[in-house]
């Protein structure tokens, strides 16, 4: 990318025995994460898969630095982390273009440069020509595109995504998944993707980390060695999906 300096091979994430406890009002402790360890290679696409409310998002928040872990070690190669939330979390009073460059405004004061960056990433997520729209004038899918563009605009080493497509209808979500893979291949970002959809995780990622419930533990890591671009309806994807489903049911 045109800005942000070096493009070295950074973006690997390592978690070692990371635990997280909440102190309850009564003085007791609730273990949310228990000894989570995993590695994410740079430029890879990894999914964290687990049921709703199991603590997947907590893992992401810890990596993003929004929350503090109780013990263990989290290491990220590279300083910049981009985040995409389940809801777009856009500023409705700003235009699409201004939303995309929001995180950069503190670092770059050159308006022309900001415009160029906004333009670049809007084009990347398929929103060219929408710069003067306000978020409420866009559909949910398009709002989520803006959110992705905003996360990419800081030229992150790691892109963390917290169920970004779960609020969208399946048709839109499918389209966006394919585009996300295209963006991933174009930019070579490390992507860590949280989801509760087995099909989604299998379709998207090279590695799936399966998380169990209460407290969250990673009980399995599956590699998916299928080439990209992947096709919906591919029988091999379906077989892996069935296998993972069975494993979940046995849990």
């Amino acid at each position: 990318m045109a800005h942000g300096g070096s493009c070295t091979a950074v973006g690997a994430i390592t978690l070692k025995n990371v635990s997280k406890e909440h102190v309850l009002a009564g003085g007791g402790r609730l273990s949310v994460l228990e000894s989570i360890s995993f590695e994410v290679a740079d430029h890879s696409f990894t999914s964290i898969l687990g049921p709703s409310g199991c603590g997947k998002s907590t893992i992401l928040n810890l990596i993003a630095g929004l929350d503090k872990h109780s013990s263990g070690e989290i290491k990220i190669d590279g300083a910049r982390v981009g985040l995409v939330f389940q809801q777009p979390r856009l500023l409705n009073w700003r235009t699409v273009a201004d939303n995309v460059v929001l995180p950069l405004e503190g670092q770059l004061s050159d308006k022309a440069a900001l415009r160029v960056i906004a333009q670049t990433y809007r084009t990347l997520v398929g929103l060219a020509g929408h710069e003067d729209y306000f978020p409420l004038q866009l559909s949910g899918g398009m709002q989520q595109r803006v959110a992705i563009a905003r996360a990419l605009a800081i030229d992150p080493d790691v892109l963390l995504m917290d169920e970004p497509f779960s609020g969208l209808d399946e048709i839109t979500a499918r389209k966006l998944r394919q585009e996300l893979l295209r963006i991933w291949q174009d930019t070579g970002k490390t992507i860590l993707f949280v989801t509760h959809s087995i099909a989604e995780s299998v379709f998207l990622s090279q590695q799936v980390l399966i998380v169990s419930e209460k407290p969250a533990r990673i009980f399995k890591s599956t590699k998916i060695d299928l080439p990209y671009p992947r096709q919906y309806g591919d029988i091999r994807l379906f077989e892996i999906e069935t296998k993972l489903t069975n494993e979940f049911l046995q849990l």
Partner: protein
Amino acid sequence: MVLGVTTGTIMGLSRKGAVFLDSWVLVGLTVPAIVNSIICLLWLGLNDRAAIVAIGTAAFPAVSISILQGIKGIDTQLVSMGQAFHLSRSAIIRKIIFPQLLPHILASMRYALGICWKICTTVELIGMSSGVGYQLNYWFGLFSMTQVFAWTLLFLLVMFAIEYLIFKPIEKRLTRWRTGVPALQWAQ
């Protein structure tokens, strides 16, 4: 008058967190505005300053409550988004919190203006030798219906002018993002 509105707004803004102020604000809200006027006239004399102080103190509680509501309604998810992207504190306040408060500030300014006019007339009626209130009282004394109506009409005209020349354009500009383009809702 405008001074009263602005100070009211600023006071409301800067005391946002203070819970203990709640009861004081409530007291201020329940004290009849005319009491404010009378006390100010007694303390500060029959002058413009008394009018301004009366207006300020009467408008302040309503304004601060409105702003307080606005602050309670702030979307914390957006704030945490700002934190996730490492926005500075001041940037979060300026770019994420303030825009969410703006509609409340605007609404309370409108409300405060309404209160201002009422108190102002009352103060003028009781203790001033000029202004609409004074005129109303004067012509009431002479039992001149025409003049009372004329002054009221003047009053209305000024209010309309303020509403349509100042508030409406500001509001339109600030809330233009709410106007949707329905056709685009379905375009993917």
